[in-house]
């Protein structure tokens, strides 16, 4: 008798065949335990929101507009919220109109809708290497192929992008879009330099490219710098994606896409097929928040908090890490990208880390091609500062121990006849 643990297997679509349970995901289940200092999730410090203000806004919303807030809405999202989102973009001098915007269920739905809109099986997307895990997931779920462009401390190496574009052009290989997170990149923590933004825009014109500009973190800039958006340089070539998850809270699942009108129309139709419309309740809550509360002050408080936490993490890294470990210095937001000595595989090391009660995301998750084994991402946004120092200390001990053990395991004594 053959026993089937999944009797529906023959019925699934082809794109579902590759979906599988992973050991790393299973280990993150341990990371969620309070005993573990987790630098794994990119979680905002929601406890630092002004909860009294949130409560008042939510209560007033239900009291004054309950029936509308609990009703269906339109597929593009409420125009009142879209007008507020234009104001949020204006904080970074990003041009846009309410009519360009499609409200989504967080930035993740935005990335998934864009992938669904543009990708057939095997279509090519160029993305920073490393790049956001969820961005990879969105592209993979539509069977797109990702090719990475290396980064350095100034973001994507646009010189290497240019070389790759030229190579692909000669091969006759079409590129559906370039996916970039220019500000405080996830996971690298660095920002694309101004010069490279202009270079990227010029390359987009030269090679007829669409750019997906994912900007969840732009307002969380430690130096309060407002960086030039790619969208402001080449508006007709950019599909702009953002979210309120990092500047308010992910629990409202409110993101958006700003796109040229023909693309916007397609995205609205795709989203209506997926979930009809974004929830009125959270949209109206965000309208009230952005319309009646000093939300910019809240963003400043968050930014100051994250900057303080980043400083503690950087100081702890300097104090506790072995000399051959290096890391990026974040320009804002949540992340530090750590490079460990060659030979150490951070995926393989994760069980040991979890047993020592510290968790991170192994570098492999940020590369579609399975590379990245000697990197790891640390998120400093959520743990309190004393926990950050404690967690980095545990990680440092782990890496020292791993190096010592590795030397012992790889040590080779000369054969007996040569040892005299």
């Amino acid at each position, binding site marked *: 008798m053959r*026993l089937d643990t999944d009797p529906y297997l023959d019925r699934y679509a082809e794109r579902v065949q590759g979906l*599988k349970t992973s050991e790393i995901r*299973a280990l993150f289940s341990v990371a969620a335990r309070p005993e573990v200092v987790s630098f794994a999730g990119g979680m905002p410090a929601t406890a630092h929101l002004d909860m009294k203000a949130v409560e008042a806004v939510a209560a007033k919303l239900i009291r004054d507009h309950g029936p509308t807030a609990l009703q269906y809405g339109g597929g593009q999202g409420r125009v009142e919220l879209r007008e507020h989102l234009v104001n949020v973009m204006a904080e970074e001098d990003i041009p846009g109109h309410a009519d360009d915007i499609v409200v989504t269920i967080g930035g993740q739905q935005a990335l998934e809708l864009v992938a669904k809109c543009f990708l057939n099986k095997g279509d090519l997307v160029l993305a920073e290497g490393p790049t956001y895990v969820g961005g990879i997931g969105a592209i993979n779920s539509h069977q797109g192929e990702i090719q990475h462009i290396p980064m350095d401390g100034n973001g994507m190496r646009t010189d290497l992008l240019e070389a790759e574009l030229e190579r692909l052009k000669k091969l006759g290989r079409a590129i559906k879009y370039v996916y970039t997170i220019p500000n405080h990149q996830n996971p690298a923590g660095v920002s694309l330099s101004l010069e490279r933004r202009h270079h990227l825009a010029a390359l987009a014109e030269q090679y007829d490219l669409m750019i997906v500009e994912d900007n969840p973190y732009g307002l969380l800039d430690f130096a309060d710098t407002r960086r030039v958006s790619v969208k402001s340089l080449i508006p007709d070539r950019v599909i702009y994606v953002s979210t309120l998850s990092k500047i308010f809270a992910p629990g409202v699942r409110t993101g958006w896409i700003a796109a040229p009108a023909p693309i916007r129309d397609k995205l609205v139709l795709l989203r209506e097929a997926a979930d009809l419309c974004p929830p009125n309740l959270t949209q109206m809550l965000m309208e009230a928040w952005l319309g009646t509360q000093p939300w910019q002050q809240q963003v400043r408080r968050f930014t100051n908090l994250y900057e303080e936490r980043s400083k503690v993490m950087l100081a702890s890294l300097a104090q506790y890490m072995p000399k051959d470990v290096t890391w990026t210095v974040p320009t804002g937001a949540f992340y530090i990208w750590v490079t460990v000595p060659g030979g150490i595989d951070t995926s*393989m090391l994760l*069980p*040991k880390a979890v*047993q020592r009660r510290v968790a991170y995301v192994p570098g492999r998750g940020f590369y579609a091609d399975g590379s990245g084994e000697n990197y790891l991402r640390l998120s400093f946004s959520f743990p309190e500062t004393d926990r950050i120092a404690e967690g980095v200390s545990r990680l440092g001990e782990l890496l020292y121990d791993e190096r010592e053990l590795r030397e*012992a*395991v790889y040590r080779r*004594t000369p054969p007996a006849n040569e040892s005299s």
Partner: protein
Amino acid sequence: MTTPPRIAVLCGGTSLEREVSMRSGTRVANTLTDCGYDITQLDVGGDLVAILRDGAFDAAFIALHGAAGEDGTVQSLLELLALPYTGPDALASTLSFNKPTAQGLFARHGIHVPRHVSLSQLAFRELGASAALDHIVDTLGASLVVKPARGGSSIGLTLLDSADGLPAAIMSAFSCADAVLIEQRIMGTEIAITVLDGNPLPAIEIRPKRGDYDFSARYTAGATEFHAPARLSDEIQQACADAASQAYRAVGARHISRVDVIVATDGTPFVIELDTCPGLTQTSLAPLAAEAAGLSFTDLCTQLVSFALRDA
């Protein structure tokens, strides 16, 4: 009407197999709740002893996997609290969880086990064990299984076809445990035999659809094909069942254990390990074996509770 037994289903914890344990525990808790038991599902942590002491439970159902739950730690605490529990006792758990110890015990009872060597981190750090790695290949061959000496779900396990990857495989195993077990890789048919209250259930043959029976092949529904009974001759099936029963007795198991066996191409059954807290998820082998024996998952869970109460 009698009061239904009050059962604590223990799962989760901080072991590397927490996720699998949560799945097992939730499935057991839902099943027993549907049967009318008074169930409390506990994600075990620092308050476990206090909860069990004060909870007026009739028994504990252990759905823990990995360290603490499977190595005799929780069993010892339950014995201290005089609370009946499912599965083998503390000593049997301790013996089985340490794979080299269990294999040595099996070999002493005349059960075939792969040729193997176990090395601790200490052996490398302080005694220069790396100089012996060439001897391992000379002795066991280059086709090897390298795994943590303690732990399950294939976490930290590497299959090797050449000596080149041996140090990396050892490092991977050391990420999960302080000792590594290096075995000669037996090529053949992989089977699992669940022994329920001393009686071997039909052998389940394991055929991953792609690659090896690794973590994702174990826990992704549909990734592995199972056959019950295993497609082996009656004679070999009997030899496997005998080996499993012997292994069960050798460690002093009770209630339930899963014995993993590879049947070599010449028909010899090699016992690889004995799992005292076998997985109880949708894709786990013990529930499949029960199903093959005509026992539903409900039957399996209620029988285990009755064994615990019987043996109190």
